[in-house]
Every structure is written in C-alpha cells, then in structure tokens.
C-alpha cells in the first residue's frame, strides 16, 4: 500500500511547489548579491591591458554595466548610457564589464558609438560575470562607495527605468 501511495505523495509535493510558485509575484530574478559587496575579481582593462582588482575600482557610487558587442539589448541602451555619462547634473561613473567579447570588436564599438565608461574591464571567458550572477547582457548594477550592490537591472536600461529605480537610490546613498 505504502509503495503504491508513493507516486501520489511525490505528486502532491510537486503540486505544492507549483502552487506556491504561482504566487511568487516578482518574476524578475533579484540578485542574491543585493546588499552584499561585489564579488572579488582581477580583470584586465580593455584599452590599457592593465590588471585591476575589484578593490581598485570602487570608491564612489557607480554603475557596473555588463555589455557585449554581440548583444542587441546593449546597442539599445548604449545611447542612454552615453547621455548619462555626459549629464553634468548626475555624477555617476559607469564601469563597463565587457562580457565574452572580442577585444577588437569591443574597441571598435566604443569608437563608433561613443564611450560612456569611466573604465572598461574585460571578461572574455565570462568568469567574473558568473560571480556577478549575470545570465544575460545587458545587466546593470548600482554599487555604493564601499562596493555594496544596491540594485540590479536586467535588460536594456533607459531613462524611465533609471529615473524610477536608480536615481532615488543614488540620492539616498550620497
């Protein structure tokens, strides 16, 4: 009898999980890293080939933007990033994390479309991106002066999202 009831129990268990999952309203994957310091890394600068550790790049409230030339969403958000970097009212350095990309293509891209980044680090094998929990470019993280992650946005960034989700946080952090 017990053996014959086993499938039913497994099924009920599964059903419970599925039921619960329906009521998990936030279908956006929040990063488990929120409220935690950025993962440690050593990455080369795309332009100068100098190596930087994660400690060196923090120090002020900044954005970390994961991008690649092969990513369509990155192209969509790029203009906004350039605007943002030139906006005198908002002092917000953008750190680029060039993900699984070809150096030559990445440099060309920045030359053609403009370079909004204060520094671009490259992660050709995607190792640092794994620590960041990146699962698709573009992704953008808001980091405070001590390197704690406060917000993560998945997908192309635009002014509306920036002003709604990120700008108020910057005010609090400064």
């Amino acid at each position, binding site marked *: 009898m017990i053996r014959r009831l086993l499938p039913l129990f497994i099924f009920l268990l599964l059903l419970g*999980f*599925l039921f*619960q999952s329906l009521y*998990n309203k936030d*279908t956006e994957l929040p990063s488990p890293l929120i409220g935690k310091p950025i993962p440690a890394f050593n990455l080369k600068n795309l332009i100068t080939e100098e190596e930087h550790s994660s400690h060196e790049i923090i120090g002020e409230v900044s954005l970390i933007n994961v991008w690649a030339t*092969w990513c*369509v969403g990155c192209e969509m958000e790029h203009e906004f990033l350039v605007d943002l970097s030139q906006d005198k009212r908002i002092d917000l350095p953008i750190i680029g994390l060039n993900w699984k990309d*070809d150096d030559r*293509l990445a440099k060309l891209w920045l030359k*053609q479309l403009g370079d909004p980044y204060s520094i671009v680090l490259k992660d050709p094998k995607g190792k640092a991106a794994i620590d960041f929990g990146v699962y698709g470019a573009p992704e953008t993280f808001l980091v405070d002066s001590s390197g704690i992650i406060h917000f993560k946005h998945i997908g192309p960034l635009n002014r509306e999202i920036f002003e709604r989700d990120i700008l108020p946080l910057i005010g609090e952090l400064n």
Partner: protein
Amino acid sequence: MIPELGQVFLVAALASALLQFLGGIGLFSRKNENIEAFIERITMFQTFSLLICFGLLTTAFLQDDFSVLYVASNSNTALPFAYKIAAVWGGHEGSLLLWVLILSIWTFLLSKDRALKSSPDLRIQSLSILGLISFGFLLFILYTSNPFERLLPSPIQGRGLNPLLQDPALVIHPPTLYAGYVGLAVPFSLAVSSLLTVNNHQWAMHARTWTVLSWVFLTGGIALGSWWAYYELGWGGWWFWDPVENASLMPWFLATALMHSLIVTEKRGIFNGFSTLLAITAFSLSLLGTFLVRSGVLISVHSFASDPQRGLFILGLLAFFSGSALIIYSIKQKKNKQEKLHPLSRESLLLLNNVFLCASAGLVLIGTVYPLILEMLDLGKISVGPPYFNFVILFPFIPLLFSIGVAVFSNWSNDSKNLINKVSPIILIALMLGFAFTFIYGWDSLLTLIGVFLALWTILTGISPLIKNRYSINKSTNIIPMMLGHIGLGIMILGITVTSSYGITFDDSMNIEQTSTVGDYEFKLTEIGKRNGPNYLAQYASIEISKDGQYVETVYPEKRVYDTSSMPMTEAGIEANLFRDLFIAVGEDIGGGSWSMHLQYKPLLRLIWYGPIIMILGGLIRVFLGKKQTERHQ
C-alpha cells in the same frame, strides 16, 4: 456575428463533453449498448462543434476582424496568408482551442477503434474520462481564455504575430507537439478505465497503437521545434534545455518507456502496475508541460502568456486529473503476479531500460523545477542551465544505450543463453568503428569515443535482426519498427556526439571582400545590402563559401526588423549537406564598413533530425501493422 457563433459552438462542445462523461458513468442508461450508441454520437457532435469553432476563429483571422481581441493581439493586415492561419494558434487562447480540438479528434478516433468494441466497459469508461478531460479544458477556455472575446471599440490595425513565430516550421510545430501531448490522454484514459472496471492487463493491447501514434507526434513535434530553434533563434544551437523544451522531453521519455512496457504487459501479462503508472505519469507530465508554458512561472523564451489565474486553473486541472488517477491507482491496482524474473531475459532488460528512461525524465524534471523549489524555500533565485542537463543526462543515457543493444539479443522469459557470445562480436565491431571514427575526426575525449561507440552499437544492434534472419524479415509486427526506432536513435546520438565534440564556433568582424577561415572553410563577405520583405525590412549579407580554393556556395544571412516589433530577428545563412552544416549569422554593424559575423562549422548536425525521421517512420509502420493485426484478431 462570427465570434458570437463561435461562442455558441464552444458552449455546445462544453455541454456535449459533459454529457459524454455523464453518459459514460451510466447516468442516462444502464445498458451498455445504449450508452455506447449515445457516446458515439455525442463524441462526434463535440468534434464537429470544435471544428466549427476553429473554422470560425480562422475566418476571423482571414477577415482581419480586429473587433475580436485575440485576432487584434495576434495578427494584422500585413501578415502573409499562411501566417494568418498559423496565428490562429500563435497565442494562448487559440492554442488552447487547438488543444481541445485535437483532444476531441483523438476521442473521436478512439470511439471508432474496432478492436476496443470487444471490451465495452473499457471502451465506455475511457471515452467518458476523455469527455471529462475535454470538459475541464473547455471550462478553462470559456472561463479564462475565450478566443472569441470582443474588443470594442475595435482598432484599425492589429498588433501582429510575434516575428519569432513567423516561420514555416512554427506553423506545424505546435499542432504536431499538441497532437503528441494530447494523444497521451488516450493511454491515460484506458489505464484509468481499466483500473475502474475490468482491472486486468487487457488495456495494454488496446493502448499500444495509440501510445505509439502519440509518440510519433511527440517525436516529430520535438524534432521540428529543435529544427526551428536551430535556424530561427539565431545562434546555431539546436537544444537549449529551455523549460518549455524540457516540458516536451519529459513526456517523450515516459511515452517511450510506456511503449516498451506495454509490449511486456501485453505479451506476458506482467508489469501491469508499472505500465499503468507510466500511462498516468506520461499524461500528467503533458499537463505539467501545459501548466509550465501557460502559467509563466518559469522564465523562458517561450513564455507567451502569463496570468496567475490561468496558471491556477491549469494547476487545478492537473491536480484533479492526475491526483484522482493516482488515488484510483493506489486503491485499485492489484499486486503484480509474483513471477520470477530472469535478470537477462528480455522483460528484465526492458524494465531496466524503462527505469533509465524514468530516471532521465526525473532528472530533467528536477532541473526544471529546482529553481522554483529553491525560491520557495527562500534560498535565492537561480536558473539551472544547460551544463547541469548536459552532464546529468549522461548518467542514465550511457547505460541505457548499452542495454538497448543487449535487449535486442535477449529472449523472452528466460535468461538468454550465449548472450555474451552473441553481443561480443558486435561490441568489437562497434568499438573498432568507433576508434576508426575518432581517428578520422581526430581524438577529442574519452566521452566522445563512448558516444560514438554507443551510437554505432545502437545502430548495429538495430540492424542485427536482418543479419540473424539471413536478410529475410518475418512479418512480425514489432521487428521492423524496432529496427527503425533503434537505428534512428543511434543516428541521432551520433549526430549529437559529433556536433558537440567537433563543432567549431568563431566570431569575427568582417569587412567587404574580407575572408575568415573556420576549419577547412573560407567565408568571404562579398556584399551587404537591404531588402524589403512583406512585413519586414531586412539587412542581408552575401557570403561566399569555399573550401581549399574551391567555390562551394553563396549564402545570404539576414537580420530582419519586423514592422510590429523593434527587436531584430536573425535569419541565419545555412549551407548544409549530410556531413556538415555551415552556419552564418549576421551580427551588428560595428562601423567602418565592418560587421560582426557568427560562423559555425557543425559536422553531422543533420543526423540529429534524420534520426528522429527514421524513428517516426518506424512508429508509423508499427501503427499501421498494429491496426491490421488487431483487426485480424477479431
């Protein structure tokens, strides 16, 4: 007027589904002949009503009737004719209507099954259960997902069909897959009705042909989906372990297991409980698949519609149908006949293989719902990716493939004598060929050798009955389908192994007249241009492929921007023959006349789809022969 008429027929179908169920449980008459006559008629009426519904919805699409919400959200005037028809099942509401239509067609066909008429109790109960399933889903449609809902005031133009779906393979992929999913309702209903009535293994004989037929559709649907993903999603992959793909793979594993388990149950009268359980789980996983796709609980490239209310409703249906089937199973299932199983008899080996198949389904299920479970236990959100699946699936599959070959040589009932003597020459041949193969293609890894060996082993053991019987195949129902099934599987495994091990992917930036080399092939970009499609604007590249200075072919990969969506779609340029695919996708304009290009060399890729075609052929032959055989028995 058309949508209102559709509504009427939808309600008529709902009512007849309910009557089909009530009639089956003997509410109107206790006499079997009366019930059967009633059910036959009501089944036909239900199918007829749903056909009309579907026809009316199609008409609304062809007339660009944007006063119908569903039409306005999934079509527009610029959509080409064929895609207006495909758009009927391009969205949530229409695909559910297709789901119940297919269910009613299966039900209708089952009611025409002549062999089943010899077991009236089984027949009545299974048709009655199918009526209840149909009723549940029709209620779901009317309550949450009515395709005939009006949109007033109606817009002048519709939103258009998701460009990803505007593709010939996608026109037939969903109906094929649905036919497979829904077809599993037939063995399910037969298994449950057997538990409720005669409670013996007689149902296995009736369920076999139906199981094979739905398996054929499932195989076709999955293969088509993979084919579509390969050339449409743009990056040259052919399987992504996407939750929705997994949702179709799990029932496939179980349907395959069921197909084989039914052979034993029919022939020897054993494993009846296991077959019953497989029939129940296979259909439950189809329902689970429907739930995963339609509720949006999992993030996927496929999640079109997400609405918690709909999810809840489907979950309710799943809970009701599978739950009650499992309860009936636990109460009614009789203890298996105690019989000594010889470990190397065919039935033992088939049982072993079925356990491997169930394990595969289980591992895929765990990977698919694991993120949900973690999230619920508040352990954070994660996504389980291809590395997990590619790794764990090896554990059941390596022994499975080996034991498939052994099973072919085994005998029923007894430990097969000289089994080692029989299989060792073939193992040796397969190993030698495997070494020769890895020698030609170059050594890659032990895993590659194992994969190639197992593929060749499966193919050779599949062919072996031909040699054993000195090239004359007796007309037994099972042997030719078995051979084709196994050969097809081996061919597919060969394709998977070789493509994954020896494929080359290369991203490059190219200027006009510049050449890029991948493997033995040179790709030369000769032109970049623009062209207008019926409802899109395309940027195309012209790429000349050559090998050792010899011209091979020119391909034209494109990047399309559809009128209705700003998201560009990739149409890859593919040059293919039996031995390799060359795959080119256009990337971005990176300025200075330079374009990024995604180039791939994929050896033996086609086998991944040729294999399933052979398997399907085997299945179809089985359906055809099986039908003739059961009719002769009458």
